[in-house]
């Protein structure tokens, strides 16, 4: 069964084409990796699939719902862990999850059950009653992942889920992602860590300049290009030039605040 299809999906900002006519299909329960240098269009692609950016042209369907015409249905079947932090730091961990449960219309009993369930899963049960601003970076990340899972999404987007985490936390998140895959959740993962993609993904798409330039299982890609690692394959396709990135609004503001503070 197909979980996600996109048909010539395109997003342009003024004259810049961030996502250029991307067509792909992802099976239900597949763990699909999106790889690409900074600014390649991974996050923009995910944002369109998650209905927070409108495509300039083309179309896409998630769980058979059109991303433009059936936004609300698409939204209730997806979960997303963004690249930038999206927690309310003034709220306690448990309150963040409670608000999330309400936003996804889980009734009270279920909300309570799921909150303790996901907190246990990411090992934050002890910290549930602390304000998120007192959390460490890794704890915040784990809380975001817990939140993204709380409403049992059919499709889960993980935009660089292990960025800046220590090896322990990264391992536990990997195990966890594998567990999710077993229960049939479709997962779209972006990452810059090639070993992560190799370890986790059924198939990977390498994106550059908004276009998919390679798409296959990590093993077949390696064989095809006689590369020892996925990183060799990646560099083969995308070259060695360093890219500039147009950062998202959150990141931009964070930088600005850092300058001020």
């Amino acid at each position, binding site marked *: 069964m197909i979980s996600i299809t996109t048909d010539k999906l395109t997003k342009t900002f003024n004259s810049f084409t961030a996502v250029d006519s991307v067509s792909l299909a992802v099976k239900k329960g597949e763990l699909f990796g999106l790889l690409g240098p900074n600014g390649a269009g991974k996050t923009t692609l995910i944002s369109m699939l998650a209905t927070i950016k409108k495509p300039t042209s083309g179309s896409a369907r998630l769980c058979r719902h059109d991303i433009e015409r059936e936004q609300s249905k698409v939204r*209730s079947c997806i979960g997303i862990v963004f690249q930038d932090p999206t927690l309310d730091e003034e*709220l306690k961990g448990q309150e963040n999850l409670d608000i999330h449960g309400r936003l996804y219309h889980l009734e009270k009993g279920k909300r309570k059950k799921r909150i303790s369930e996901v907190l246990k899963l990411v090992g934050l049960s002890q910290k549930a009653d602390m304000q998120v601003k007192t959390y460490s970076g890794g704890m915040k990340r784990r809380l975001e992942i817990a939140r993204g899972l709380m409403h049992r999404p059919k499709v889960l987007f993980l935009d660089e889920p292990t960025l800046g985490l220590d090896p322990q936390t990264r391992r536990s998140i990997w195990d966890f992602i594998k567990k999710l895959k077993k229960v049939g959740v479709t997962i779209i993962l972006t990452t810059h860590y090639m070993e992560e993609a190799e370890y986790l993904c059924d198939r990977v798409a390498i994106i550059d300049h908004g276009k998919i330039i390679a798409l296959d299982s990590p093993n077949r890609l390696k064989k095809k290009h006689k590369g020892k690692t996925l990183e060799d394959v990646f560099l083969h396709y995308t070259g060695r030039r360093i890219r500039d990135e147009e950062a998202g609004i959150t990141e931009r503001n964070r930088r600005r605040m850092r300058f001020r503070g």
Partner: protein
Amino acid sequence: MKKQALLKETDAECASAGEIMIYDAFTVWLREMIRFWRSKSRVIGGLAMPFLWLAIMGTGLSSIVPGVGGASYIEFLIPGIIGMTLLFSSMFSGISVIVDKQFGFMKEILVAPISRLSIMVGKTVGGATTALLNGLIILVLAIIIGVHFAGLTGMFISIVFMLLISASFVSLGVAIASRMSDMSGFQMIMNFLIMPMFMLSGVFFPIDQTPAWMQTIAHFDPLFYGVDGLRGSLIGISILPLFVDFIVLSAFCISIVLIGTYLFSKSEL
């Protein structure tokens, strides 16, 4: 059929689309309230300025202005100060939209299966609740220092006006904030809008005794109707009949919520 599908997918406690919308707006409101409760400094900060205006300007001007239309100057001033407090705290509550964008929480709200209208309504009611609290505190303070008001009915009517003023200006603030991403720019625009509205609303002087040109401009100021309504209901002195104030302000409130929702739904992150 549609209803059932929705229930199945989301386990909503509520049934109709309208109820779901209210439930979602409540969620957005609830979060605003938790945040508000955590930052007591916002309450105190919001009250400091009107208190200064009242204590210093009120006392100062009382010595040269004997009274307006049968009321003492302080009595005349209080409804205006309430209107001013509502204007300031309402307009600036739009800043929560920018804070949510900067700290990323806006994304969490935007990917959730809730309508843009309920986000707008939740934010508006949230901002209006805190503004209204400020207004009520000034009212109670005034009663404590011995200001005489027209009676209980008048007080209830004044609360209706407070609600309308808060809802109108919160949605104006939220609408503008939904198009902006930078905090200092928002503050600039707010001051630029707030100051003329504040000065022309007749907080300090009766507009009907000003030159014709000023009266004409004042009639384009939504807060003018708010202050007039508050004054009419609290001390029984008003330029226009109360129902006119009520209708104009309600019309402004509804149209600005609709425009705000439209702008908000168009905004991308």
